[in-house]
């Protein structure tokens, strides 16, 4: 069958719907956001249409630079932790019986239905000194006195990883369940222990899926704004928290939009960079 280049407008029909959706739900809102980011903030009022750079200029400071780098590092940490946990988990999951797999997936989906608030509260309690996990350790004689682990960086990481874990599993699941199980058997007959085979065959064979998942979780974590507030101290607040502050509480839409645009651009840049690096590696 020959593929013909589309000639008439009607030939573009099949892509019209996705294109329209993309335009409606991504391009238009993002375009509006870019426009607002150049508007003039009116202190004590709202904003007026204009073309000013001041919103971006305000953002270019050591303070926001530090917040941005922290957000990026946090998101990267969450991405690495989530994938490091979810990849072996999903691998083992795909080895189980179909029924068991379905049960696990349903369970993970139900975790997804928990709101960020509930997750934040649950972890704040689990990490508290009064009702938290450290009481168990004290009971087991591993600790002298219960301590409070929240708020703190660890708590923020745990919370976001917990939230990202089901997404990570669901994104990795198709790739891992499509993976030919005889690859692993071949590795075993060729002298790899199951653990070694996992790292020399399963992981590298799926490295594209892993990179894609890392990027997805990274972007997901970058957008988190509730858990850093609920489980972190002010120094653990991400740029998304500050964007929320500006948009919801300071009514400073132009500045919030400028920060959001910057965040989107930086994450797009990082994603592009990692893809580029991946491509070079593949070519080498």
């Amino acid at each position, binding site marked *: 069958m020959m593929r013909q280049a589309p000639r008439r407008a009607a030939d573009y029909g099949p892509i019209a719907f996705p294109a329209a959706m993309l335009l409606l739900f991504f391009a238009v809102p993002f375009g509006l956001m870019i426009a607002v980011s150049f508007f003039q903030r009116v202190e004590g009022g709202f904003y007026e249409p204009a073309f000013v750079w001041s919103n971006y200029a305000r953002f270019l400071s050591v303070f926001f630079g530090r917040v941005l780098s922290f957000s990026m590092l946090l998101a990267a940490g969450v991405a690495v932790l989530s994938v490091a946990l979810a990849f072996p988990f999903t691998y083992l999951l795909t080895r189980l019986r179909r029924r068991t797999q379905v049960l696990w997936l349903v369970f993970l989906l139900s975790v997804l239905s928990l709101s960020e608030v509930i997750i934040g509260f649950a972890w704040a309690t689990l990490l508290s000194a*009064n009702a938290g996990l450290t009481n168990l350790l004290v009971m087991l004689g591993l600790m002298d006195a219960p301590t409070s682990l929240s708020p703190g960086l660890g708590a923020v990481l745990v919370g976001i990883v917990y939230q990202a874990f089901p997404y990570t599993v669901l994104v990795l699941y198709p790739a891992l369940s499509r993976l030919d199980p005889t690859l692993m058997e071949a590795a075993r007959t060729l002298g790899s222990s199951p653990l070694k085979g996992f790292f020399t065959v399963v992981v590298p064979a799926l490295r594209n899926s892993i990179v894609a998942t890392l990027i997805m979780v990274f972007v997901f974590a970058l957008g988190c704004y509730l858990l850093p*507030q*609920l489980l972190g101290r002010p120094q653990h607040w991400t740029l998304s928290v500050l964007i929320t502050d500006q948009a*919801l*509480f300071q009514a400073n839409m132009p500045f919030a939009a400028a920060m959001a645009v910057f965040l989107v651009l930086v994450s797009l840049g990082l994603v592009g960079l990692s893809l580029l690096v991946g491509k070079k590696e593949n070519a080498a």
Partner: protein
Amino acid sequence: MKTNNMAGGLLVGRRAILAGGAAAVGLMAAPSILRAAETLKVGVYGGYFKDSFDKHIFPEFTKATGIAVESVAEPTGDAWLVQLEQAARANQAPADVSMIAQVGMLKGINAKLWTALDLAKLPNAAAVLPHLVNKYPDGRVAGIGAVSWYITLVSNTKAIPETPSSWAALWDAKRKDQLGLMALVSNSFLLEVTAATFFGGTKHLDTEAGQLDCFKKLSELRKNVKLWYRDEAQFEAALKAGEVPMGQYYHDVTGLAVADGHPVRSTFPKEGGITDSGSWAVSRASKKAEQAHIFINYMCQPSIQALLSRKVGTAPTIDRKKTDLTDAEFAGVSSDIAPIIPRYDLYLSKADWLNQKWTEMIVG
């Protein structure tokens, strides 16, 4: 991203925490503008406030005046103000009367969004405490106090046996990593607290030097703070558990927790509790100014203010002596100690600067 459950600073008010998705409700209510031409549309914060007003206040008002009320759930933040302003430009009013927080009132005044109120038609409003009456620069009245509430010094009685008497207790070295304070400069009012406690009053905030004094004093507080909270429920749970044994919180909600047997207390420090309030204001696009005046006048009655104190937990906007509130009922929502009144003007004129300083201060 998910539920919008944040404590909403000036504009949102604490009650809005229950108003998940109130923004959507507000938008969806818009098509009903034309249909309900014969009723008065009243905007109140979605969630607890709207539910309480629907249950205890509006039916009584309709019974008394024959004017039907359609309550509109206001979204959190500035969104409602933006909607009102944009609708007003199109000569529409999503609500005739709205409950508006103080900075919102000021913004609306700047935008000339509010219909000037005729005090002659509001005889009951004469009793409203002066600081709860919003005025245009030329003296016309833009809004009348609707509800007010107090933020006080709260503590866990088990963790902290001695009752604190001053906001200075927050600075006590013993309180290291023990405080829970509100995360935003514009809802914690800690600049005012600092000025009132250490610099002789909120007047000290008139100058930038004075503001910087307060920031400097506040930064000493940082090591004592464990939780800078936006979510009230989070702090309340931590306070009850003793996880965060001291902080600032709503007086009436803390009173409910005491009644439930939790080991907590709410103290009006000698410098005063922080009072915050919402006002009734009428959109300039409203064609129901008559009925709106009747409504506001009705709401200012001593009996209604007492009803609000009993059923909704707000402090009366009028002198308590005019109400039939018992001492216990009054203590549950207010205090005779002169309050710290927030410097709303600052959050209008220096909002971005204060916010930036504040964020840098607490992030450290």
